[in-house]
């Protein structure tokens, strides 16, 4: 099998396994996995920028929140039905990421991280400032009755699971395909050696710009899906913590691997789920994992797997 066929088979196999799990898992874990897949979509989006292009953003929560508020406000205030509202969410995230990309890409390295952090903080404060519409810290709930697509009730656990799977599969297969195309190869070139890629005649700036927009829009899709499937929109999802999470997931699962983001989210989700039963200070786990990853496993779980056993892992 060629490399591309192998990775396609891996991705389709993963989707098939996730589909089967829908009918095998007990209700509690089915619900968890639905949430995990939506968050993994966010992580897949983050991975496009951090894992493949090598740009570390500390402000992706603003894109997630743009999708979330785009959909939520369109349904709540605009009275739109879910599908057009989802489109509004995607467009908001795409527009925001284009603006941020145009400004932030003028900087590099540490300055890029701080600029994205600052923009995201401003977005978070904006959500709080317009509390009359956004509900500020407390957020708002999207009515159960309106969360239906073509007669399917998205609040039903099985339907919700399959909808989450659909969103995640699209994101996974899309990025998988993108990384096989020459566009993806140029992104990796930018990560490995920006000057050389430039010298070879590629338009580095245009590729980075598109990477930010694709990454931001995928994150926004995850935010919109989260609001639609779980019926809640709140400023917490725009806070710094939600910019740190995708970084943590991707680092843990393996930056620059297609399935790493999902693996990272599964691990972190159950680690936090388990420890929050023991103590209210569950973010301690996140801190310890971040430090340990920095020290001992810079390539993450899937990165180690690729290094040791499966060199073709996409």
């Amino acid at each position, binding site marked *: 099998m060629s490399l591309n066929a192998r990775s396609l088979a891996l991705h389709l196999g993963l989707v098939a396994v996730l589909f089967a799990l829908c009918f095998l898992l007990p209700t509690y874990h089915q619900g968890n996995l639905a949430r995990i897949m939506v968050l993994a979509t966010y992580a897949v989006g983050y991975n496009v920028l951090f894992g493949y292009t090598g740009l570390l953003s500390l402000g992706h929560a603003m894109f997630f929140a743009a999708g979330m508020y785009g959909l939520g406000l369109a349904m709540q205030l605009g009275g739109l039905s879910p599908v057009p509202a989802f489109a509004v969410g995607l467009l908001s995230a795409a527009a925001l990421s284009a603006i941020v990309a145009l400004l932030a890409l*003028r*900087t590099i390295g540490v300055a890029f991280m701080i600029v994205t952090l*600052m*923009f995201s903080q401003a977005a978070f404060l904006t959500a709080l400032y317009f509390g009359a519409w956004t509900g500020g810290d407390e957020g708002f709930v999207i009515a159960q009755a309106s969360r239906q697509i073509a007669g399917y009730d998205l609040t039903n656990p099985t339907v919700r699971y399959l909808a989450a799977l659909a969103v995640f599969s699209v994101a996974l297969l899309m990025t998988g395909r993108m990384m096989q195309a020459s566009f993806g190869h140029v992104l990796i070139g930018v990560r490995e050696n920006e000057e050389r890629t430039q010298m070879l005649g590629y338009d580095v700036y245009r590729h980075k710009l598109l990477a930010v927009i694709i990454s931001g829009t995928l994150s926004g899709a995850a935010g919109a899906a989260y609001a639609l499937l779980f019926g809640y929109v709140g400023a917490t999802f725009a806070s710094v913590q939600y910019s*740190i999470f995708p970084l943590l997931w991707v680092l843990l699962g393996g930056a620059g691997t297609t399935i790493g983001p999902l693996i990272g989210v599964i691990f972190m989700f159950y680690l936090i789920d388990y420890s929050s039963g023991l103590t209210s200070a569950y973010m301690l786990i996140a801190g310890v994992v971040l430090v340990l990853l920095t020290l001992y496993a810079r390539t993450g779980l899937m990165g180690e797997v690729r290094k040791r056993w499966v060199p073709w892992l996409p």
Partner: protein
Amino acid sequence: MEFGPHLLLAVLEGAVGAAVLALTALGLSLVFGVMRVVNVAHGEFFMVGAVVAWFVADTIAGHPAVGFVAALIVAPLVAGLIAVLVDKLVLKQVAYDPEATIVGTIGVLYILQQTALMTYGPEPRPVEAPFSHRIALPWFEWGENGLAMFYPWGLSITSYKLFVIFAAATVLVAFWLVMSRTRYGLIMRATQLDRETALAFGIPVQRVYSIVFGLGAGLAALAAVLIVPIQQAYYLMGAEPLLLSFIVVIIGGLGSVRGTVVAALMIGMSDGVISVFLSPTLSKIIATLLVALVLVFRPQGLFGTKAA
């Protein structure tokens, strides 16, 4: 209150904030300048300072001043020691790689914050000021009988707040003297200018890094001890000084100490003054966006030179 006295009050309150901010931001700027490390956990060292101050003041019975003086010594030491440990166990191990240190210090941020939550608890607690006299301030106005002096209601400051301004200024001057007049300052400046050459001249760069990282954390903790009788010690209190310090260091020019102090005064004062007239959230939005744009269009800061 009339507009004039109101503005004076805002300026005084702003000066207290600016004094504390200058100390905190100086720590961040020192670490960035000498080590080229962005310490995202800086705000948590501030928090550790405040929390330790509460523990010390709580343990020592007697006059509040005794506990306060003890806290002034103990809290920066504790924060500094933790920072030296972080430097040895984390930063040194990743060879001060910029991205790895940011991710690592984010981890340290959560570890410190959540440890405080587990040991100190979720509720904010006050520390008693060593002394606190209300000082009414006079206001002059040109009235019917010529220049008249009177004491408008509400225009006052406490002696403790004046002490905070004075203490912060003293520390800033002392820091400047150490940096510009002593051998230690010379060593730190040499390391900042050129790490390799410093190493070649026999400067123990690794030890300088540890000390600088500890000193930076100590400055943040000292600022926290000064402010804790006015605010309260709280496990989430680190976010605000971190963000403000970032703003100050960016405006002042990354790694420039003089710029940092000037910017801290500017930001602290305008923060106090603006938040009297605008909603605090709106003023923060404007400030954050402005700073992001400064970093985009003038990465060397408003006062920094191109080379820095």
